[in-house]
């Protein structure tokens, strides 16, 4: 390891073990990072679909998804640009609840999450099942702001946050991995912050 002359940083014993390598605690800030214009998306127009390799392809409206069993996530989120936000809380519905109705076919191994803006990101199916992923519309007890993906976004907090597609419109189940927007632009296909999987080849 190469040390940087005179760099002390904020490290040492005070470093929070909840921070993955190379990440820092951003505190109460929540930077907005997106590569597109922020859409103007009313809840009345918002829908969420599950399609591809499932027994029952389905589309939920805003009211229909709100009526499902609520679920919350309390924990941390990690952005590939090196900030982490600790102790956040989101409310919505578990992806498990949605997949229980859609029923993945045995051949399904991956998903592409896609947004109302056209944004896409790819995930192994195993990373969004087993209480690891949510569709969320509340942050800290309030409606999720549009800049942060409102009315609703995907939340996959154990992976870098670009996997948590803003303005999410659905999941397409596939029998192969299909790189999404950032992934074809050099970012990692899985994006585990604890393994520092930031870029292709990491």
């Amino acid at each position, binding site marked *: 390891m190469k040390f940087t002359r005179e760099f002390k940083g*904020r490290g040492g014993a005070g470093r929070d073990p909840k921070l993955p390598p190379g990440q*820092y605690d951003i505190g109460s800030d929540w*930077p907005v*990072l997106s590569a597109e214009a922020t859409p103007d998306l009313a809840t009345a127009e918002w829908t969420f679909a599950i399609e591809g390799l499932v027994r029952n392809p389905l589309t939920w409206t805003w009211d229909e998804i709100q009526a499902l069993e609520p679920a919350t996530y309390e924990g941390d989120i990690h952005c590939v*640009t*090196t900030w982490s936000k600790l102790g956040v809380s989101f409310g919505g519905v578990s992806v498990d609840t949605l997949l229980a109705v859609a029923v993945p076919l045995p051949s399904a191994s991956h998903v592409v999450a896609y947004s109302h803006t056209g944004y896409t990101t790819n995930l192994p199916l195993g990373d969004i099942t087993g209480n690891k992923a949510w569709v969320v519309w509340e942050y800290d007890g309030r409606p999720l702001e549009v800049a942060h993906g409102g009315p609703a976004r995907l939340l996959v907090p154990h992976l870098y946050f670009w996997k948590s597609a803003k303005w999410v419109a659905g999941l397409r189940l596939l029998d192969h991995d299909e790189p999404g927007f950032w992934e074809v632009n*050099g970012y990692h296909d899985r994006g585990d912050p604890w393994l520092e999987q930031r870029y292709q*080849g990491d």
Partner: protein
Amino acid sequence: MDLPTPGPWQVATVEEVSKETQRAKTFRLRLSTPSRHLAGQHYVVRLTAEDGYTASRSYSIASPPDDSGEIEITVERLEHGEVSSYLHEVVVPGDELEVRGPIGGWFVWRGDTPALLVAGGSGLVPLMSMLRLARRSGRSELVHLVVSVRSPCELYYANELPGREATVVFTREAPPACDRPPGRLGEDDLRRALLPDAIAYVCGSSGFADHVTSLLARLGFPDERIRVERFGPSG
């Protein structure tokens, strides 16, 4: 797509440090493993303390793609920014830094298509790489840059701006020779810069990016031809 992908971490030697503004410095780095970048890409700089603690931040490349084996990054000093403070206070020519790049395949301009470049403050850095590429390759007719800054003393690369294909909009305080009174970037400022079939590259704070994309929408510019890079706090 022919996209340069980031190699492993490498050591770069600081060749030159120059002051852009009160709060920004440009660092010229000689790469030990040179790689030609695309205009708009960035590098990550990683600092490592003796106890193993690391801090890394991304910085856009200001210099145009070339074969010099060197890149320039411009770093704004942020209050409480542990990396930017270190770079501003400690780093001198001859120092070595760990860097990784070039990174990014979306917010890039390859130098052969019409481009509208709209920058807010420090968001000018990646767009300057594009403008410099256009000028250096004799393709200035392909680009128009509009940069919005509060006052003349906050303008980066002031000896290269404005120009035939570059407009500076001052929002709070304008130089005496400037016809336009100080004020927020508006539709008129962008209308003059529109080129047929251009892709718009918008870079600045999130608030600035939203303001520009809504101005562009009002001018009838299609959303799908807008690429945005939002500069978050990246101290």
